[in-house]
């Protein structure tokens, strides 16, 4: 999808300069780190196409794309947070909350259905960000708390989960959620657009650079005169907004505000980001990598379904094993070890 574009952005800052004593190894490593996930994705997809004839069909690929679109948006926000040296566990709950609020507000039209959830989710993100950046609490714990809080809010809004709000049949929301263009669903284009914008923001804006600096060395970033607290707060707002937006898009697709969504989604998003070569300690990573990670997760799940007859327990074992193979391969390809 957008890998081409973002890869271009990511490598744009390597013009041909006279190389000094250390030649391209480090650069090669950086390249492999960026594209290790892509390599694994291509290898995996090729293998799947050879093994299962229904894998490489247009319908199946479009299916993988649309299935991955919401996770891609959530993982995009997570990429910013993780590069900035944080973590956001609340995205699953915020995603679900966004969907429920969108469905609820859609009775008053499409605009409220977009604005209300964005406002609420943005507020949650702001709260996360402020508590983390100003009060200095650990992101893991703060966002774990808002995972609970957002889920509680969702249950409160839906009468303890008993009520499911439906998007009116004539709502414009449904057109966006369900429409297709060239056989590919609208959400895919929306996700792709957001990812390109995200990649540009990350690589080509001062804010993006500040996020890298923050994750690379927070103390140094502060001493270098970056507005650390503001940048940090912003990443959490961004993450929550994107998660909420993914929720809206999903509600538009499902046509209802489903209450049971998003459980464990944070782990999927984190896995996708890390598979994409982003360091969990922060300071390095890319949007294109995350996208590859998301698609890899989609392919793994698709392959398990292609095998077709596994019990749920075996499915878990297989997907855990796949996950492991993928990260190990990716790690070896990119050779970015923590030490040295």
């Amino acid at each position, binding site marked *: 999808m957008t890998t081409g574009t973002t890869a271009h952005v990511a490598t744009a800052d390597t013009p041909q300069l006279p190389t000094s004593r250390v030649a391209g190894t480090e650069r090669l490593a950086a390249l492999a780190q960026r594209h290790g996930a892509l390599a694994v994705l291509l290898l995996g997809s090729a293998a799947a196409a050879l093994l299962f004839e229904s894998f490489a069909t247009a319908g199946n690929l479009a299916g993988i794309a649309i299935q991955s679109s919401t996770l891609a948006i959530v993982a995009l926000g997570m990429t910013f947070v993780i590069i900035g040296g944080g973590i956001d566990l609340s995205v699953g709950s915020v995603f679900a909350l966004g969907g429920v609020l969108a469905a609820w507000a859609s009775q008053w039209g499409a605009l409220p259905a977009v604005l209300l959830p964005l406002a609420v989710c943005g507020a949650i993100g702001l709260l996360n960000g402020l508590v983390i950046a100003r009060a200095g609490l650990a992101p893991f714990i703060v966002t774990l708390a808002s995972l609970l809080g957002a889920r509680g809010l969702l249950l409160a809004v839906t009468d303890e989960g008993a009520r499911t709000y439906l998007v009116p049949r004539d709502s414009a929301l449904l057109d966006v959620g369900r429409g297709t263009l060239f056989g590919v669903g609208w959400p895919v284009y929306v996700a792709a657009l957001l990812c390109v914008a995200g990649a540009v923001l990350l690589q080509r804006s001062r804010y993006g650079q500040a996020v890298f600096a923050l994750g690379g060395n927070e103390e140094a970033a502060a001493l270098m005169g970056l507005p650390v607290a503001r940048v940090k707060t912003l990443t959490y707002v961004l993450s929550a907004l994107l998660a909420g937006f993914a929720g809206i898009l999903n509600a538009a697709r499902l046509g209802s505000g489903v209450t049971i969504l998003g459980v464990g989604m944070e782990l999927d998003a984190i896995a996708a980001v890390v598979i994409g070569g982003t360091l969990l300690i922060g300071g390095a990573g890319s949007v294109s990598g995350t996208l590859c990670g998301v698609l890899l997760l989609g392919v793994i799940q698709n392959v398990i*379904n292609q095998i077709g007859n596994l019990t749920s327990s075996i499915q878990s074992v297989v997907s855990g094993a796949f996950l492991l193979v993928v990260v190990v391969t990716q790690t070896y390809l990119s050779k970015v070890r923590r030490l040295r």
Partner: protein
Amino acid sequence: AVLAGCTRSESEGTPAPAGSEGQQVVASSTPGGAGCTLQQYGAAKLDLADAVVGFSQSEKEANPFRIAETQSIRDEAAKIGVKKLLVTNAQSQLSKQISDIQDMLAQGAQFLIVAPLNSDGLEPALQAAAAKKVPVLTIDRKINAAPCKDYLAFLGSNFVEQGRRAADAMIKVTGGTGRVAILLGSSGNNVTTDRTNGFVEQVKAKAPGLQIVAQQTGEFARDKGQAVMEQLISSNPDITAVYAENDEMALGAVTALRSAGKSPGKDVKIVSIDGTRNAVQAIVDGTINAVIESNPRFGPLAFKTAQDFYAGTAIGENVIISDREYGSTNARESLAGAY
């Protein structure tokens, strides 16, 4: 599997029955209008024996209900000789269920049996099926969509009704008075909502003497049920009855009550829903008082419905099965039929 060579378990009880015992029986088939025929649905005629059938299971096969349900579908598919049965499991994630269904369609499934995870939210999957003119038969949980258009029909139990019947059973075993604690299922789940509403309504209507003192979620799991019960019993020692929305939580409550020095089934009456073997055995043992069945063996009925459908018969929009009720009088002889 590696360890399997030299294991030695404790001696097991009797193995679960595999026969036709405990088959589902149709209680009512409400023909919403005239029922749904092949033409009305707009599907192509098909010989099931030569077809690819997909089954989308909603939750992990990690509890008796889901194990029995999936097994029953697999067994019946084998019995009637379906060409290929695809089985997927959404692992309790709605988005995965949607993609599962889409994946199966991409693999050429021609008839789908879906155990929906949620009543709402499956529309994209249904649309994908409709676009390929693949009939979808939903089992065990009803979805909010247009029958005979978005999906073929619904086979299953009525959860509100189950809640009402549980209330009736509760009124019977308690004599209509007492203090009840409810162990709820997972929050946000339709089944939880229905089973709670049915129970609460019925109790209000029929037995004002039964006072509901606590409603806490045990997440359909035995250990959570036990933990919650332990907390409730110490703060409300005067609880006289427990309504558990599934058997696992009821069994957890039994353990909790026992270790609190109470005698479950006597001091504290217990009613639950599902009809698993362990729960029915507990009725025999006298620790649970009544269980409302929720029969998971959908295989035969589902495939028969499908065959009827392709044979041209009109299918009712709701095929409600008749769930049994286990009580002290019939538990022992029904044990073999429990799953």
